[in-house]
């Protein structure tokens, strides 16, 4: 089963993305704590793209495709037309450095990496696909 959702690049629409994911995942009998972490990972990638790749421009859009395979594997595709940011090559800061520097950002992609089994960026001429896999 494939579920699709398209949303303007505005931070205020992150809640709509989460609602869409909640609806999709609750159809598939996944435990609540797992559902929440999957929603979190997708929310983090979307927030990063909306803020950093699209400067919160609501005239631009990101698309979501969620594919549930036989109740055991889920693939989330987050599709945009920005510059493309390679999550898997991202150098993680350490938690202690973040605490020391008192900065409020920088742990979103760490969460995505801990939550998902596999993350890939498929870069095309016109669009980027950020693909997140999780085995349930």
């Amino acid at each position, binding site marked *: 089963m494939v579920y699709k959702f398209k949303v303007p690049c505005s931070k205020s629409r992150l809640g709509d993305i989460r609602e869409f994911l909640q609806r999709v995942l609750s159809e598939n009998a996944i435990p609540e*704590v797992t559902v929440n972490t999957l929603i979190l990972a997708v929310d983090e990638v979307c927030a990063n793209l909306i803020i950093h790749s699209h400067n919160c421009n609501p005239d631009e859009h990101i698309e979501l495709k969620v594919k549930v395979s036989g109740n055991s594997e889920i693939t989330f595709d987050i599709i945009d037309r920005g510059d493309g940011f390679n999550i898997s090559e991202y150098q993680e800061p350490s938690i202690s450095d973040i605490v020391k520097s008192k900065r409020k950002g920088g742990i979103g992609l760490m969460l995505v990496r801990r939550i998902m089994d596999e993350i890939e960026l498929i870069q095309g001429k016109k669009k980027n696909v950020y693909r997140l896999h999780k085995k349930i």
Partner: protein
Amino acid sequence: MVEIKNSLENDIFTIYVIGEVDASSSIYLDESISDATSKHKKIIVNCKQLEYISSAGLGVFMSYINDLEEQGIKLVIYGLSDKVRHVFQILGLDQLLKITDSEEEAKGIVNGV
């Protein structure tokens, strides 16, 4: 969206975080903690009605860890649901922040009991 409420009882300042803290709403949590830490030494954060937190919200709590230590401010988070608590656990932030189950325990800690 998030709603933040406050109350002061004796010298314990309570911040109630209600709803969802994400990249669009974490600024309100930040303002509220910033304001509280400038005026109070004993702060408890009631998260019984916190339904969701993303890295933006976790980042707000993390950014105050050093200030709390340096300024001798006690801040305890309590009442997290299982799913929200799990988000704090993914990166081990539950070890860096003071988190308890109940309001009584939170008050005990800020009172040095």
